[in-house]
């Protein structure tokens, strides 16, 4: 067989093959189920709006247009949420510190994010002379891209799931884990030893807190029996007597998981009191030292989007996703409930920032490895116990709750005593 004939055959057979990727079926956006009539008009409103735009398109294009609309909607909504969040954060911090916060730009300061944006955009973009220009540019882009990508699997409402994946939670945390690479790139590409050292510290922090973050949601996955976000939300539907929702946070292992998850999420999104990587008042700005202008704004945006994504995931995993807290309140559209819960968690982030002083690096790692990780591991046990005893009823229900509470509170008290012993209460001889 001559080479030409061989190549021709190979080429022909390559073209004749079925190249459809297996994943394509998973990526099909949720088409509005025609059989469902129980959902109210407001519930379907986003989908109806979308279909009004794309309904007339032929099938393959419609799929593409629907996906594009979902992407644009997510980016626009969360970018504006980012803008409002920066303003809300400064206003709330101000109020906590007995001052009004920014109130000069626009009506009561509402245009402050715009002013900040213009300032950032018009600043000079400085790249150090010895920097690795390509990586220096790529780091913020990769970071922002990865933090936007995580929004794809969060169920925002009953019919609003951009991508339904079987292993959606794993996808979310895989994308989150990859952001560490961007931080390393930022630190290394700056060719500044302080940037590099700070990036290493940031990585140590992120890796340390990845462990409790991942361990904390495993009991939830066990309870729901699913790694898909839709499955986890579906498992939290329904109410006990129309009042008590079946949210995971209202079970002992779920509550412990929620607390550990939120602490680890604070550290993962570099928020105070774990904002060591960019501690403005102590380090210069950590791995962001050599960044200015638009690239710095991108880092900032990625940080806030990461915070939003982690809060959205916490809502999905622990706070019942888009389910209403009371059966009587179900007439309010599901996406409104999701937004309310998300905003509540974000306000919690800001409240915590307004309250606590920054940890030292050794306290930070000690908290992760000696406190959160053991608690999360014990919480796995609690989760297993809770799953195994779902069929207990009557008097055994009390026993179930008692054992689970002991399993949650006992280790917390024991570890807490040991953890606290070296630090508190302190006496200051010379203060």
């Amino acid at each position, binding site marked *: 067989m001559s080479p030409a004939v061989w190549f021709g055959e190979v080429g022909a057979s390559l073209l004749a093959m079925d190249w459809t990727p297996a994943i394509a079926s998973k990526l099909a956006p949720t088409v509005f189920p025609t059989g469902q009539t129980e959902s109210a008009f407001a519930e379907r409103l986003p989908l109806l709006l979308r279909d009004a735009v794309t309904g007339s398109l032929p099938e393959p294009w419609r799929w593409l247009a629907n996906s594009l609309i979902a992407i644009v909607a997510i980016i626009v909504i969360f970018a504006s949420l980012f803008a409002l969040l920066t303003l809300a954060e400064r206003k709330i911090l101000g109020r906590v510190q007995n001052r009004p916060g920014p109130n000069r730009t626009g009506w009561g300061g509402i245009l402050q994010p715009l002013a900040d944006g213009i300032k950032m955009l018009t600043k000079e973009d400085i790249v150090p002379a010895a920097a690795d220009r390509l990586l220096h540019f790529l780091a913020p882009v990769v970071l922002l891209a990865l933090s936007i990508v995580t929004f794809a699997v969060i169920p925002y409402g009953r019919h609003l799931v951009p991508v339904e994946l079987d292993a959606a939670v794993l996808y979310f945390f895989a994308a989150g884990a990859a952001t560490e690479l961007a931080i390393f790139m930022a630190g290394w590409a700056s060719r500044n030893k302080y940037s590099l050292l700070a990036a290493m510290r940031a990585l140590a922090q992120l890796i340390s807190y990845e462990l409790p973050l991942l361990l904390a949601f495993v009991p939830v996955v066990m309870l729901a029996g699913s790694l898909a976000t839709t499955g986890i939300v579906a498992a939290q539907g329904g109410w006990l007597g129309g009042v008590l929702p079946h949210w995971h946070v209202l079970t002992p292992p779920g509550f412990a998981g929620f607390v550990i998850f939120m602490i680890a999420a604070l550290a993962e999104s570099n928020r105070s009191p774990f904002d060591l990587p960019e501690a403005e008042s102590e380090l210069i700005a950590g791995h962001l030292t050599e960044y200015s202008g638009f690239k710095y704004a991108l880092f900032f945006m990625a940080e806030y989007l990461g915070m939003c994504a982690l809060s959205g995931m916490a809502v999905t995993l622990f706070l019942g996703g888009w389910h209403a807290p009371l059966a009587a309140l179900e007439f309010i559209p599901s996406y409104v409930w999701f937004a309310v819960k998300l905003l509540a968690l974000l306000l919690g982030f800001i409240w915590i920032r307004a309250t*606590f002083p920054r940890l030292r690096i050794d306290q930070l790692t000690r908290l992760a490895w000696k406190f959160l990780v053991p608690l999360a591991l014990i919480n796995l046990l609690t989760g297993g116990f809770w799953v195994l005893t779902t069929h207990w009823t009557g008097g055994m229900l009390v026993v179930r709750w008692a054992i689970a509470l002991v399993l949650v509170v006992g280790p917390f008290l024991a570890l807490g005593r040991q953890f606290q012993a070296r630090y508190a209460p302190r006496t200051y001889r010379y203060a």
Partner: protein
Amino acid sequence: MLGTGLLKGLAVTAKNFVGSFHDPKRYTTVEYPEQPTKLPENYRNFPFLVFDGEQPIDGLRCVACKICEAECPPQCIYIIPDRDEKGRPTKKPKVFDLDVSVCMSCQICVEVCPFDAIKMDQHFEIATADRFNGLLLHREDLAKSDAYYHSIHPTEAAQVDEILAEAKRKAEAKAKPAAPAAPAAVKPPEPPAPAV
């Protein structure tokens, strides 16, 4: 128990946040340019000249005695007494310049003035782009009414008024028995330094 301190801290900030909306004690910011700050009565920065009546220059209490010029430690005051056409002093300053870029707000000029003519001002928004002429205050800039003095230092101004009235009464009482002999004795005795 571990964590109670954290909850206490959160409660403190929450109280501050909620309080800032209804409790003026928890919202202490004064938005300065729009909302003028209320300065304490004893605040002082640079001197000014007090005048009585309506005419700023004619009503000046200053008699150009040059005591303050002599006493001023950084020597920021410059006075030329006015004279009439015959060359006699009119007991008014022709030039009274005060360089506030040199003045150190020591209040010695106020202490030494026998006529209570120079007092400390509270006007502090004197920033200017012209540091030579803009910060050299002339007689016209320095002359401010007695009413203004009362508005910024009410307690001190009341004391000064008492002292001046007392002096005037004594002068009148002295002038009555020896009416023709003492037209020049209007000069009051040196008053005690006003309380600061």
